[in-house]
């Protein structure tokens, strides 16, 4: 592995100062950085270790907004009762990340910063209309996750900036949220395609809000506006859900690679879209009753 200096701040303040003064890269769980560093795909003269900053480790709710600290691990999200009730699709996604060893180390902040189109947490968070709180030594800002993810592997993170937390509004009313991942094998599966959805029904049972995100089928995770527009105001019948799922094909541009083919991804994205929509409708209708 390449040589680097390693800085070990103890508090968030020290972390921000260290990033600013060294110009170094932040490392949290290391599950993305270490393999990439070994292959020469990531380099840094200085690594700033964020792993002991407890101030970034929280899952809470403030005035109807759920906040998850950047250092929360996938396993911590899976274990969270708050998230199980308020963001079940995020928990479903967390359960499919790698294996227990990876889930114990990999963080939410790391997953987002890595900005892979195959990331598990991004589709659910996009459907939750999540925002990212970024902090640096001299200030902070809030940016919608959709805008924060620029291109594969690239975010809007500025030098010296770090992800503080992810925030989304608690869903109210008759809602359903679902996530599905299609991998090549049952254990330690990387996405061939994944899909997340949030559906909200009005008191009459029609679709009031629909948010569908598909991953591994485009350079970044996409929200399918074609599907969403088709669903709003409609009754959630199997026919409508089917149409919407098929429509989502227009918003994606999958490629063929070592993992799968363009044709298969296109086909299975539609299947997954239909399945998460169906599951979300069932959840939402359960809340109506």
């Amino acid at each position, binding site marked *: 592995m390449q040589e680097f200096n390693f800085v070990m701040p103890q508090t968030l303040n020290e972390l921000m100062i260290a990033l600013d003064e060294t110009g170094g890269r932040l490392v949290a769980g290391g599950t993305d950085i270490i*393999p990439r560093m070994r292959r020469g795909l990531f380099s840094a003269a200085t690594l700033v270790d964020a792993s002991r900053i407890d101030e970034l480790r929280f899952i809470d709710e403030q005035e109807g907004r759920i906040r998850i600290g950047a250092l929360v691990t996938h396993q911590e999200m899976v274990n969270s009762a708050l998230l199980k009730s308020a963001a079940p699709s995020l928990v479903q996604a967390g359960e499919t990340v790698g294996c227990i060893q990876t889930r114990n180390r990999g963080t939410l902040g790391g997953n987002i910063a890595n900005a892979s189109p195959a990331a598990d947490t991004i589709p659910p968070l996009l459907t939750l209309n999540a925002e990212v709180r970024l902090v640096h030594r001299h200030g902070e800002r809030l940016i919608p996750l959709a805008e924060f993810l620029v291109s594969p592997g690239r975010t809007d993170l500025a030098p010296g900036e770090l992800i503080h937390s992810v925030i989304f509004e608690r869903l109210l009313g008759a809602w359903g949220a679902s996530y599905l991942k299609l991998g090549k094998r049952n254990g330690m599966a990387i996405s061939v395609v994944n899909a997340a959805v949030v559906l909200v029904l009005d008191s009459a049972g029609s679709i009031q809000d629909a948010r569908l995100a598909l991953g591994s089928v485009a350079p970044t995770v996409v929200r399918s506006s074609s599907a969403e527009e088709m669903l709003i105001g409609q009754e959630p019948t199997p026919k409508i859900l089917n149409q919407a799922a098929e429509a989502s094909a227009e918003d994606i541009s999958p490629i063929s690679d070592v993992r799968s083919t363009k044709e298969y991804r296109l086909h299975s994205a539609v299947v997954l879209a239909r399945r998460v929509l169906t599951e979300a409708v069932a959840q939402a209708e359960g809340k109506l009753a």
Partner: protein
Amino acid sequence: MANETRTVGKTELRKDAWDKVTGAAQYVADIPQERMCYGAIVRSPHHFARINQINTKAAEDARGVLRVIIADDIPGRKIHGPLVQDQPSLAIDVVRHMGEPVALVIAETRQAARDAVTLVEVDYEPFVPIFDPITALQPDAKKLHTNGNLVAEFDVRDGDIENGFADADVILEETFNVPRISPAYMEPENSVARWNDDGSVTVWVSSQHPFTDQADVAEALNLPVEKVQVKSAVIGGAFGGKEDSTLAILAGLGAWAVKRTVQIVNTRQESFLAHPKRHPAQIQLKVGAKKDGTLLALKATAHMDTGAYASLGPAVGIILTETLAGSYRVPNVELKTLVAYTNSPLSGAMRGFGSPQSHFAVESMMDMLASALNMEPITLRRKNILRPGDQMFTKVVVNQTALSLPICLDNAEEIIKRYQKIEPAPGKKAGVGMALAAQSMGLGAKVPDDSTHRLEWLRDGSVLLHLGSPDMGQGLAMTAEQITAEALGLPYEMVKSVELDTLKSPNGNVTCASRMTYLTGNAVINASRQLIEQLLTEASKMLNVPREKLAYKDGLVITPDGEKVVAAEFISRVADDGRQFISEATFSFPYPEETTPQHLPIGMPHVMFCFGAQIARVEVDPELGTVDVTHMVAIHDVGKVISRSGVEGQIEGGIASGIGYALYESMVLKDQGQWIDSFTEYLIPTSKDMPEHYENIILEIPEASGPYGAKGIGEIPLVPTAPAIANAVYDAIGVRVNSLPITPEKLIKDMI
């Protein structure tokens, strides 16, 4: 023979397991060494290229670097190979596959060695590579080796193929493709070599053939064999992949060059690139049968890709050819197998050795034929299975152990009916399929096929077993200890194997070919008899009783008047005299000239076979094409169970590999011209990919010539798995996939 055995047939505890569960077991890279330095290999980034020049100066000048070695520096033999000597230890003028070793850097630290690898300047002139054996065999294809691209060709006939097809009511023809897969043992290849003050070298290996490593290192270093000591460390799996030279030669060269101890450990990436895989093959199969299902004719042409160097390609080609008619009687046969060089990574030995490839073809074909004849697959198989006394197309007469075949089918029939009643999960389609398997044992006629082992009876009455072949993790030592203990009537705890050291151990030859229980077992039984004879001869002298009046049982010498004296008494008195009870026995695989057909190429035929069957139940998601193996039953005849947990472990592990072959594994070239080289992209089954419901049915139809009736089990468990799954998938959704792995992409393509 006594019916009640003392240890044979039971589950004993492996003696090496205690160290393995505490982390104390020492694999090559774990053994503490003094003043160790590290080797790293400069590997070709090209698939096929001429080497115009190698400049090592910058690397040699780098901090911490001790030496950089290229082919010119090798004092002795520069080319090696288990069958054909065509593989340079370090590239000479040409590189023929990506990852081929070009130079060896030796440095004080692992990091310095790896960093210096990038400083070795090699001027390559790339050629257009060939990755397909059929292309490689075209007359205008560029020659990868001076003698052309055909490594071996086998042509085997029996009967009259034209008449066979002429009489057939149904003829089916299909082309099957099986992929290149990696043995993917958990311990990547490695070796440590130490230069000794007396000009000898000691090499630690993780290898199936330490004595061959010894000869290889001696040749490369121009040393007499006695100056090379090879020690077998604990081995982290091999599955055939460690039957080629696993870095012993390079480590030896390193030690010789710097006169110190050198460690070379392959990364997993290097292991994927540079170490032997299972042969990919294209098998064109044509079968003809009568309306009633009788097989009349079988014709096949198989093209095998052995990659850049021959490795064990010809031998794999032989078994692929011999097993193409599976477990069946076919009167008219015409088989042609061509083994070709390409610029792909090497293919060599891997568990099954040609049989998994052939069985995917023939066992898929049997179900296709059953469908065309409107017969149950079981019924079609029943009609054609070999029976004792039948001749295979190699003219080998099948013995009594073929009685396991109808028993396999009886069991399979019951299981299939049971599984067909299980309701699939909502939205899924269920299917049940089966396959039979025949796996050859031994190296084949006219190939030296023997194994030597030694027993030493110690003064406390315990026995040291000097195994001449390494236990590669499968439990050979435990099995041999159980057989020895049984033969001597001693408790299992009193027999201990000693780790293989060429300086001290007899040469048991390569651990491979489903032959070890058979050869080793027979050898140690003979050696045990010799020990008993030595004991009774000594006892006779010491007790002054005629030898023929003495008996031996369970560690005791029994005198004519019924007095029992422990063996230790005599052994310790002999030891006091400075003598020992030692016996060594060699057992050779029986290829009796009178009954073994001699008209076939060297290495053919094999005369002893293991038989088995597997039944798979799958659930297929009809929208996504994903396949889950929910139930699996393995029926295997082992002649006689020696170690119950050992036999079960071999079967269970084999099935996992079979599932990988069927559904997940394939070493392909990616778009950028790079081979798949990590576990991220090369997927082997995890615990979540194994069937939830699994059952072992172990048959024991004694092999008369086997130790306590035992046969082999090492390879056959992964032979029927893939075709059983393919047949189950067809049963579920009516899609026949003729290439492995059976991926959702392939299924959906045919379904939508």
